């Protein structure tokens, strides 16, 4: 999908956050934008028949800006997207996506545009990304993709669920807390 600064209120409007689970969140994915369709409007990318079943989302810059709602990447992931390629991502969205196992990788603006053109010309184009090698291949098109090393390693080891890691060596957490004047007193 094209456009810069696509915010999380677009991705999942706030009224659909009135829930206590993430189940079914994908049914509200871009709900307002998708309902704006009709004569004079292009069909929303998530409604284009040829894109059904797609597992990679192509976006432009500052994707996912705004609210910290994890409902946004949850909805995208639950719709069936496994990875997002974009020019840049808002920081909280990027982290939330990584936490739920959906890498957001970056490429240059020109490369993203070339990929978007390619897919629009031929929706059957197969895009392959290799997180370990940092490459993206789509037919004759090739480019480098970036992912911070820690996120890449988390995906290659399957350790993106951080809680257990943070709970290891808990005596060090207690020691850190005991150094803090506002906890230990002064």
């Amino acid at each position, binding site marked *: 999908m094209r*456009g810069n600064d696509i915010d999380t209120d677009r991705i999942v409007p706030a009224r659909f956050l009135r829930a206590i689970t993430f189940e079914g969140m994908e049914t509200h994915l871009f709900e307002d934008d998708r309902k704006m369709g009709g004569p004079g409007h292009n069909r929303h990318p998530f409604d284009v028949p040829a894109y059904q079943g797609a597992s990679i989302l192509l976006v432009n810059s500052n994707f996912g800006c705004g609210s910290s709602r994890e409902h946004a990447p949850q909805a995208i992931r639950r719709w069936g997207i496994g990875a997002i390629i974009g020019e840049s991502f808002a920081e909280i969205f990027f982290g939330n996506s990584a936490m739920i196992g959906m890498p957001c990788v970056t490429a240059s603006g020109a490369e993203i545009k070339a990929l978007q053109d390619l897919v629009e010309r031929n929706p059957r184009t197969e895009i392959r990304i290799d997180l370990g090698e940092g490459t993206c291949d789509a037919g004759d098109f090739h480019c480098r993709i970036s992912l911070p090393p820690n996120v890449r390693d988390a995906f290659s080891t399957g350790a993106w669920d951080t809680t257990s890691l943070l709970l290891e060596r808990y005596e060090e957490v207690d020691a850190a807390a005991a150094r803090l*004047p*506002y906890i230990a007193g002064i």
Partner: protein
Amino acid sequence: MGTTLLKKVWDLHTVRQLPTGQTQLFIGLHLVHEVTSPQAFDELRRHNWKVARPDRTFATVDHIVPTKVRTRPFLDVMAEDMMASLERNVRDFGLRFAGLDDDRQGIVHVIGPELGLTQPGMTIACGDSHTSTHGAFGAVAFGIGTSQVRDVLASQCLALEPLKVRRIRVTGHLPKGVYAKDVILAIIQRLGVHGGNGYAYEYAGDVVDRMSMDERMTICNMSIEGGARVGYVNPDRTTIDYIRGRAFAPPADQFDRMAAWWTSMASDADAVYDDDVEIRAGELTPIVTWGVNPGQSIGVHDRVPAPADANDPKAIADALSYMGLTAGQPIEGMKVDVAFIGSCTNARLSDLREAARIVKGKRVATHVKALVVPGSVRVARAAESEGLDEIFRAAGFEWRGTGCSMCLGMNPDKLEGDQVCASSSNRNFKGRQGSPTGRTLLMSPAMVAAAALAGEVTDVTELA
């Protein structure tokens, strides 16, 4: 070579370097609310984890709270479900909770500071992007998603990458009618909505030095709208004076020693920054957003841009069309249907006082629906004891109960159809205020008050 506050706080709270290359950071205060926590509590139950530090955790309810009728069960069954879920979670996990009937209840970013929970030198996290607000105290405060809420509940820690620091010095004097809200809107306009990606923003300069804590909170609150997850102001005498005597302030026999520690955490005079920006206050005018992100703003006397003026003409054209504006049209005189004074950005006592000063003895335009939503029960009580509620009511405003209200459309307060709202909130995204076609103009609370009276966007300077 000196050190920034960010680095000092970061180093002090570092537990260890993780094998992932991230830092394990201890979180000194975790604020919890009903929207981003239920799934995290479910995860704790699934793994049989406890909340690691109930003594460093505090919960309240704000986003879904109706501002007219708060009786239970809520009419909205989904909101009732969320409320009941939070009540069950705080009970099961033994957390401190300012619930619906508690006189400490309010918007999470208003009550943290108000209760003295928020203190300098702390790390703070909350499942809400406007957690940056707490940076006004010289805390390092992160907005987080639900998986990270789970991390903090279970371990009181986050796994994070270090941030760069951009100092933004606001210098000179603010002209009459120009407020903290205009300063942060000007910063976002200048640096862009993603300019802060990867940075913490340190707000400094003599204008910020002279600001009250309420004003500093307004500025830090909207850091995230400029892409910066963290924004802060170095603690000083103003900070110390604000905290003294609050419910969770350090005990009297330790207060002065704590205050000395707080100021020692401020950035050193010779600290080195990754970037440094100056904003000249004297050049600012009241600012209004015309578009669909907080960077799309102009001075109240300026004209909205034309697509050809920008490097992203399609985005400008799309925003103009959504807002029902014509390229080159003046923003002054744009008709408003709703005036909203509220939100974690601008619903503190000083905001209400200033707006009340503007509307006192005047009347809201007949076609405008105007509402004031105090940021907390305590703000509401303080305002009422000064008679501000009477001033607003006499002018034709509705005086509502506390909550997030019309900032985001998760409760009964919503725009209808394509209404235009002059709003003291923080986001003008499409559909943000609850109607998929609703239109938001962000501005200072004083400017909202002026717009309510005039029935259109107008310069508050003559009334201020």
